[in-house]
């Protein structure tokens, strides 16, 4: 939901395509995800989800591994899941990186991968006639990855380059400091990119990388999603042929629970370069569950209270013009994470005011009921927004991937939207009361070094 909500409600981009919504699916009914799909489980624990569509000739292949920075439980290993994703492009027993690139190039394929807290996703879109060759190459790297210590060290430098390119943006640092302030034990305390010191140590972690592969790149962590011009039988035959002998593993990361937060926390980042002050207000929030009314209530609240048509947005951004960015972020994650509101404040003297207005908004909804019409409009918007985004095979597979990592079935989206339908204004108020408490709050500010802003918190180290 993170991408959808941010894209639809915050960036307010014109969304494209709802065509498949009515053309493709059988049993449209009130379901959100209207495509027929099948689930096949192999004996080794690998799951295949096939979604035939009527976008012809092309297939999107997503390989979703339910491992991310959340699984990085050992000290000094932050960022490893993401780094490992890079290594997956460095060759396997039967394909050099060059041979692999050649196959994808011939297929005119778009291919890439990404890592988040909870998942690593490898994806490609290409002509259906290339499905077997690409499945075969993909299966090889997941089972027989092979790279030299030299390649490993070189790739570690590219990852450092990725950190460096992101580091000019104050938001990267805000995100890092927010996490380490709000979480003390759970692995959400570090970003997916990882700490700089751990990234700099990555070249020395070759042996650990082999261990990482053995632990997590296993069928029980993995779901293959095939969307497009394909039949279940074809996808299943290829999956059995190339992935059938993959061996199940035994490892489970022991991810520490985050203890209850008992005091409000703050942090301030002095920034070396001139910038506008940034402010983030976060509360500890629940983990994903498609049947949780609380989670559904917070999703709706996020949009009602902080979306573009919210009173706060209209006040701070449009009328008073004290803020040029206002956005809320509440992800659907495997473990409890944060409900965060970000603001960029135009005048350093107004940071305290803006913080108070944000806090007041949280506070007010603990007693006031939100307007029923607004609740209904938000449900309509979420449904439209989701459906309008499903405008290609790649977009459909991409929208499924986060939920596949969490629940291994597209049905979770339908259940989630069913839950949205049941949420009342009182449910939203109750969820606000339960989660938006002072003692579970963390506020992070960032401002140009030497600049005096209201609402300074504990000062952490400056710009990298």
């Amino acid at each position, binding site marked *: 939901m993170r991408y959808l909500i941010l894209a639809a409600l915050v960036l307010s981009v*014109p969304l494209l395509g709802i065509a498949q919504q009515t053309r493709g699916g059988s049993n449209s009914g009130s379901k959100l995800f209207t495509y027929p799909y099948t689930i096949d489980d192999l004996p080794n624990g690998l799951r295949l989800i096939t979604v035939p569509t009527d976008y012809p000739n092309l297939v999107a292949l997503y390989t979703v591994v339910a491992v991310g920075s959340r699984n990085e439980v050992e000290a000094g290993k932050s960022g490893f899941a993401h780094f490992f994703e890079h290594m997956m492009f460095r060759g396997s027993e039967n394909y050099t990186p060059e041979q692999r690139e050649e196959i994808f190039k011939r297929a*005119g394929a778009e291919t890439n991968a990404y890592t988040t807290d909870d998942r690593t996703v490898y994806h490609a879109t290409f002509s259906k006639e290339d499905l077997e060759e690409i499945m075969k190459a993909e299966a090889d790297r997941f089972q027989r990855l092979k790279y030299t210590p030299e390649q490993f060290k070189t790739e570690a430098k590219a990852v450092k*380059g990725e950190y460096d390119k992101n580091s000019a*943006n104050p938001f990267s640092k805000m995100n890092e400091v927010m996490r380490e302030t709000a979480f003390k034990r759970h692995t959400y305390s570090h970003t997916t990119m990882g700490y700089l010191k751990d990234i700099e140590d990555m070249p020395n972690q070759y042996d650990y990388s082999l261990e990482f592969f053995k632990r997590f790149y296993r069928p029980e962590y993995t779901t293959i999603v095939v969307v497009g011009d394909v039949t279940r039988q074809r996808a299943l035959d290829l999956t059995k042929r190339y992935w059938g002998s993959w061996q199940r593993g035994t490892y489970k990361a022991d991810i520490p629970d985050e203890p209850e937060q008992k005091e409000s926390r703050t942090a301030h980042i002095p920034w*070396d370069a001139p910038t506008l002050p940034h402010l983030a207000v976060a509360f500890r929030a629940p983990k994903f569950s498609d049947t949780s009314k609380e989670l559904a209530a917070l999703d709706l609240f996020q949009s009602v209270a902080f979306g573009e048509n919210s009173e706060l947005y209209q006040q701070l951004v449009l009328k008073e013009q004290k803020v*040029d960015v206002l956005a809320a972020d509440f992800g659907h994650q495997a473990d409890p994470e944060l409900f965060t509101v970000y603001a960029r404040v135009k005048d350093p003297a107004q940071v305290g005011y803006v913080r108070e207005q944000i806090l007041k908004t949280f506070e007010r909804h603990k007693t006031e009921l939100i307007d029923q019409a607004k609740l209904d409009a938000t449900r309509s918007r979420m449904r439209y927004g989701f459906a309008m985004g499903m405008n290609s*095979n790649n977009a459909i597979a991409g929208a499924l991937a986060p939920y596949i990592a969490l629940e291994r079935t597209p049905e979770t989206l339908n259940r989630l939207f069913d839950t949205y339908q049941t949420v009342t204004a009182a449910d939203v108020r109750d969820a606000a009361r339960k989660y938006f408490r002072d003692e579970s709050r963390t506020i992070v500010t960032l401002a140009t070094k030497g600049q005096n802003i209201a609402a300074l918190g504990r000062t952490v180290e400056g710009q990298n």
Partner: protein
Amino acid sequence: MRRTLSLLLIALFMLAPLAAAHAQTRGRRRAAPKAAPKPKMPTSNQPASNADAAAGKPANVLEPSQSPLVSVRLLFMTGTASDPAGKEGVASLTAALLAQGGSRTMTYGQIVEAFYPMAAGFGWQADKEMTAFSGTTHVDNLEKYYAIVRDMLLDPGFREDDFARVKSDAVNFLKVSLRQGNDEELGKEYLYNIIYAGHPYAHHNMGTVSSLERLTLDDVRGFYRQNYTQGNLVIGLAGGYPADFPARVESDFARLPSGGPAPKRFAQPTVAPGMRIEIIQRETRATAISLGFPIPVTRAHKDWPALALVASYLGQHRSSVSHLYQRLREARGLNYGDYAYVEYFPRGMFQFTPSPNLGRSSQIFQIWIRPVEPQNAHFALRATLFEYDKLIREGMKQEDFAGIRDFLTKYSNVLTSTQGARLGYALDSRYYGTPEYTSFMRESLSRLTLADVNRAIRQYLKTDRMRVVMVTKDAAALRDAIVKGTPSPITYNSPKPADILAEDKIIETYKVGVRPEQVVIVPVDRVFQ
């Protein structure tokens, strides 16, 4: 490639023009393969449109289909190259105020409220010669949606508070987001400015900080009156709109002043001979590098497919298959990626595919080297020039040529995979006078030979007018090293193959052919000032 979370939030903090316009900025999702072929239905196409434009009436590009979605793109053939001197930024501010301000009958707050349940928006994009307004809505909401956006464009509110907000967004975009929050986009945008020094393209599309601060609402009104004319408008519609819809839109937009300046075409810039390097000094961890120069080849030119193929070979955007990426990143771990372009490609950091409706009469050849560690900046510059010079000297090989041609032929489907993108490309095809994009690419690529490509390389790729922008912390030391030609050996954290080490030996003293007075340091607060 292979990125982490939060791209969207980072994009959000870049704000302003980015947030306004582009579906492609939506996180990691790349545009996807082409959907069902369009049903054959009558469309008005180029000849009619051109005749209309000549008659000073709106032209149109129609792409009807059975889709329940309707995409609207209203393209005005005017843009930031028409900013009057001293009023740089007025074209963008006008577009921003139209798309993010109220109409006479509705405040912007009311418009946002009305769009909300439809999950609709109205984006804008102002480039040198084109200003595009775009949105998509479900056909159920079309009438309501259209009535709002029609009034936004035809009956703008031009309120002082909306003006103050979009102006402050524009200033903060240049001063904070671009200057101080994203070295790569900073370097690229500054490169575009210096490539076109003295030309109407020379300033950033958003204007300059000082000109923006002087602009008034009357300036915006004036620009609107002069440029938002029937003759400058091309109406783009796609999807399942009712049959009478195009005629209604045309009739509504006939309320714009008739006639108007014919679409301007701008001359090629005159670039002073010799390489020039500008080093932006800024407190930052890494060193961003961009290189480029103007080319007379646009999509309308017979050699465009050849040059597009060369750029794809040298550095297909965000792809790991291309040459620079393989040599600089994969073999040496210098940075996160290395790409090349034959067209203006803004916001590359956030998009896998280019935005349509950036048609220009003058284009650029450009190389984007993602940030490197400062101690490797000189080496990275030399390595880039080494590979570039080698391409000019040796040309492409047959096997590389064939592979890239196949890739590009299929890839044109990816670029036009959604209805909105197809409409955008159709509008661009109209501008350039080329056939529908995928067939244009398929046919021109099938006719192309290796000899054509290598001739185009020799004819258009030059070093003697190259402009280079680097963004770094210790600009003086970098300038000194470049001017003196100090050797720049590179060290690695692991053993490298002999061929790489041998090549490094050449690169570490490779001549950067620039005269000392052409290597200058620019304090960051002077950029876009």
